[in-house]
C-alpha cells in the first residue's frame, strides 16, 4: 500500500468471494459492537487490516468508556472459512464519503465482497416482551427480491424530516450502489429503556438472520441463555418494583407513557440492571 494511504493491512486474506458485515461501535444497545464481536468470536474472525484515524476522527483527546481511555478504531476481520468479512468501527466524524469508499474498496479489492450487510438499531416505544422485528432497507430491487424469502419487514417508507440527517448506513448503502455492490441495512427496534444498556433479544434477531442468509451454522446456545437471563432480570425488576411493572404493563397494552414516565422507567431499569438485577 502507498505511504499515506489510510488503510494498513497486516495480512492478506484470500477469499474466492465474501460478504461484508459492518457494525458501528456507538450503536443503540451496543448492537453493532456486540453483533460483530459475537460473529468474530464464533467464527474465528482474525483482524487483518485497519483504517488510520487521523483523517476521519477528531483527535482532540480521548474518550473514556467504562473507566478506560479509548481511541477511535476501525478494523477489518476475516472469517475465512465462512467467506465473511467483518468491519467494526467507531462512526467517523469527517470525510465520510472517503471513509466509506475506502472500506468498500478494501472489501471489494482484497476480499472480493459481493454483498454488504450494515447493522443498525432504532428506538422502540414498545415493551421488551413484544417480539422483535427486523427491518430491511436495500439498495437494489434485485436485493429486495433475494431477501423476500426471509423474515424481514421490507416495505419501509421513509423520508428525512426537517432537522434530521440520514444515517451513516444510508450513506454507505448509497455508495455501495454507486460501486455496484448490492447491500442491505438491517434495523432492529430496541425498547427505549434498554437502549443505553444491551438487548440480547435484538442481537439474536439480527444474528439469526445473518446465520440463515450467510449459512454460518452458528450454535446460539450461549446467546439463548443470555436472552433467558435478560428476560428473567426484567421479570424480577417488574416483580420487585411496582412502578416498573406498571409502566411496562401500560406499554404492553399499547399505551404511551409521558416523557417523565419514560425517563423514570429508563432510570429504574438501568439502576436495577447495574446492581446485578
Amino acid at each position, binding site marked *: 500500500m502507498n505511504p499515506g494511504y489510510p488503510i494498513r493491512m497486516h495480512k492478506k486474506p484470500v477469499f474466492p468471494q465474501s460478504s461484508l458485515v459492518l457494525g458501528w461501535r456507538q450503536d443503540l444497545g451496543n448492537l453493532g459492537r456486540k453483533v460483530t464481536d459475537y460473529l468474530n468470536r464464533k467464527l474465528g474472525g482474525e483482524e487483518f487490516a485497519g483504517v488510520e484515524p487521523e483523517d476521519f476522527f*477528531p483527535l482532540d483527546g480521548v474518550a473514556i468508556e467504562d473507566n478506560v481511555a479509548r481511541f477511535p478504531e476501525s478494523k477489518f476481520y476475516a472469517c475465512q472459512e465462512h467467506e465473511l468479512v467483518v468491519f467494526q468501527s467507531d462512526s467517523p*466524524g*469527517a*470525510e*465520510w*464519503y*472517503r471513509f466509506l469508499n475506502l472500506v468498500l474498496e478494501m472489501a471489494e479489492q482484497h476480499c472480493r465482497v459481493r454483498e454488504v450487510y450494515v447493522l443498525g438499531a432504532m428506538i422502540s416505544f414498545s415493551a421488551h416482551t413484544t417480539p422483535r422485528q427486523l*427491518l*430491511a*432497507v*436495500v*439498495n*437494489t*430491487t434485485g436485493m*429486495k427480491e433475494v431477501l423476500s424469502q426471509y423474515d424481514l*419487514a*421490507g*416495505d*419501509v*417508507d*421513509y*423520508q*428525512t424530516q426537517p432537522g434530521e*440527517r*440520514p*444515517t451513516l448506513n*444510508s*450513506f454507505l*448503502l*448509497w455508495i455501495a*450502489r454507486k460501486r455496484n455492490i448490492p447491500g442491505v*441495512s438491517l434495523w432492529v427496534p430496541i425498547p427505549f429503556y434498554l437502549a443505553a444498556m444491551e438487548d440480547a433479544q435484538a442481537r439474536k434477531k439480527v444474528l439469526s438472520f445473518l446465520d440463515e442468509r450467510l449459512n454460518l451454522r452458528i450454535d446460539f446456545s450461549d446467546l439463548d441463555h443470555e436472552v433467558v437471563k435478560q428476560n428473567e432480570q426484567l421479570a424480577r425488576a417488574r416483580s420487585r418494583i411496582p412502578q416498573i411493572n406498571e409502566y411496562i404493563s401500560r406499554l404492553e397494552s399499547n399505551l404511551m407513557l409521558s416523557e417523565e414516565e419514560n425517563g423514570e422507567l429508563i432510570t429504574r431499569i438501568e439502576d436495577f440492571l447495574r446492581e446485578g438485577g
Partner: protein
Amino acid sequence: MGIRYYQEPQLQNPILVASWPGIGNIGIIAIDTLRGALEAEEFAEIEPWDFFYPKGVLIKKGVLQHLEFPGSRFYFKKMKENDILFFIGEEQPTEMGRMYAEGRRAYGMANLVLDVAEKLGCRRVYTSGAAVALIHHTAQPRVWAVPNTRSLLAEVKGYDNTVLMSDIEGRGGQGNITGLNGLLLGVARRRGLEAICLMGEIPVYLQGLAVSYPRASKAVLEVISRRLGIEINMDNLDELDRKVQRKVEEFYQQIPLEIRGQLDRLKHVAYAQPAEPGPITQEEEKKIMEDVERFFKKRGGAD
C-alpha cells in the same frame, strides 16, 4: 472532487458574487435575493459528496431511492457591461461538529469556486456575511467592508453606508472573518484576484439566535447592487424584515430587565469615529458584552 457543468456560458468581464450561510444568513439572503431578482441561470455545481454529509434520504417500499446533498451551485446573468457570476452554497462544508468550514475541505471548496470563476474570465470577487456589532436592533445596520488588497481601499471608502475595520471603534483595523465567506477572500488574493467581503451588521445579542436578519441583508444588497449598477426591488426583503423584527422584539422583551436596560442604551449609539468620544464608554461597552454573554450562556443559545 469536481465540478459538474450543465453548460459553459461565454461571459464578458464577469464579477463573481459568492456566499455561504452564516450568522443571521445575512450574506446568503442578500446574494440569493439578487440572483432571484436577476433570474440568473444555473450552469454548474460542485459535486457534493467529498464535502458534505447528506441532508436527506428517500426510501420507498424498503428500497433506497435517493440521497440528497446540500447544493453548491453556480449561476450566471448576462449584463450590459460586467456579466455576473453567482455562487450559492447551501451549507458550509463543516466537520467534527464545527460551525464553520475550515482546513483542507474549506480550502478545497474555495479553490473550486475560484477555478470556475477564473475559467470564465472573472477577476473580481464579492463575498458577503455578518458583522456582529454593538448596535440595537432598531438601528439601521451598516456594512463592514474588507478588501483583499490595499489597492481596493479607496474604492471601498466610496461605497455608501460602508465602513472599514479601522472605522470601527476599538478595532484598529484588525479582525477576522470566519468560514468560507472570509476564506474565499484569502484564496482569491493568493490567486491574484481582487475580492471584497461585505458584512451586514447584526446586534451582538442576536448572533446566537436561529433567525435571519434581513435588515442587514438589505444593507449589503444596496451596496452590491449600486456597485453593479442594478436596481433591485426590495419589497420582499422589507416584508421579511418586518416579520423578523416582530420576532426579535418578542425575544427582546424576554431579556431580563437589567440587561435590557443596558442594551436599550445602544439605541443612542451614534456611529463614532475611533478618536471621538462615543455615547457609551469602553467600560460600559465591556459590561454590556459581559452581561449579554452571561445571559446567552444561561440560555444555552450563544455561539
